[in-house]
């Protein structure tokens, strides 16, 4: 059951992202909201789809670390460009 709820959450966050683009939103608020959305979606894909719950702690740290690193780099780049 949980995996279907995760799928539904991912689809809803995707539709929100699509709507934000259609509505023409921009700026710091949009970047922060979309990075939060990326992190939430990425976390659930890693934790529930990649079955990382069953693998070593190190792997979970590495893949989540990748997600945090990418989000921080994107935020830093947008901050530099403001």
């Amino acid at each position, binding site marked *: 059951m949980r995996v279907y709820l995760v799928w539904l959450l991912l689809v809803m966050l995707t539709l929100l992202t*699509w709507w*934000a683009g259609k509505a023409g939103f921009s700026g710091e608020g949009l970047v922060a909201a979309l990075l939060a959305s990326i992190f939430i979606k990425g976390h659930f894909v890693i934790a529930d789809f990649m079955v990382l719950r069953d693998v070593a702690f190190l792997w979970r740290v590495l893949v989540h670390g990748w997600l945090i690193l990418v989000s921080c780099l994107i935020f830093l780049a*947008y901050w530099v460009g403001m």
Partner: protein
Amino acid sequence: MWIFILAELLVFAIFFASYAFARSYNVELFNEYQQTLNRDIGAANTVILITGSLFVVLAVRAIRDGKVMLCRNWLLAALGMGSLFLTLKIIEFADKFGQGISLSTNSFYMFYLSLTFFHFMHVILGMVILAAVAWKAQQGAYCMINYTGVETGASYWHMVDLVWIVLFPLVYVIR
């Protein structure tokens, strides 16, 4: 396989950071040309990949329960999602190439075409892996106590999904 997946993720991280920092020096250009992208196709492709990932999860669950043919069928359904993704992407690429857009048009299109084509090739590789796993499942190579191959193929497919989850907002929406 996990080492390979991490290496792939690192390459994509470099690509994403390069895009974001290149944009920070050309904000107006990137914002202007981002408007020419088809967000409807981008969002549809996100839902398609997420759904493909769900089907792969269901394939792993089926083989854990010893349901070999159900596992194969879920993998075939995931391959269907992959095919749909590629079809929409080809339509998107054809539209851009039809307008005379290429890697040398400007730095936004250089990143857009490179990033999305690089990911496109990973979807194809993911589909080849899933097809091989489905074929082996059909041949009886997996059972409820031996399904490492199914999990390995699944992990690669989820990596392809994870990368697109970052790529779509970054290239199509964030401005």
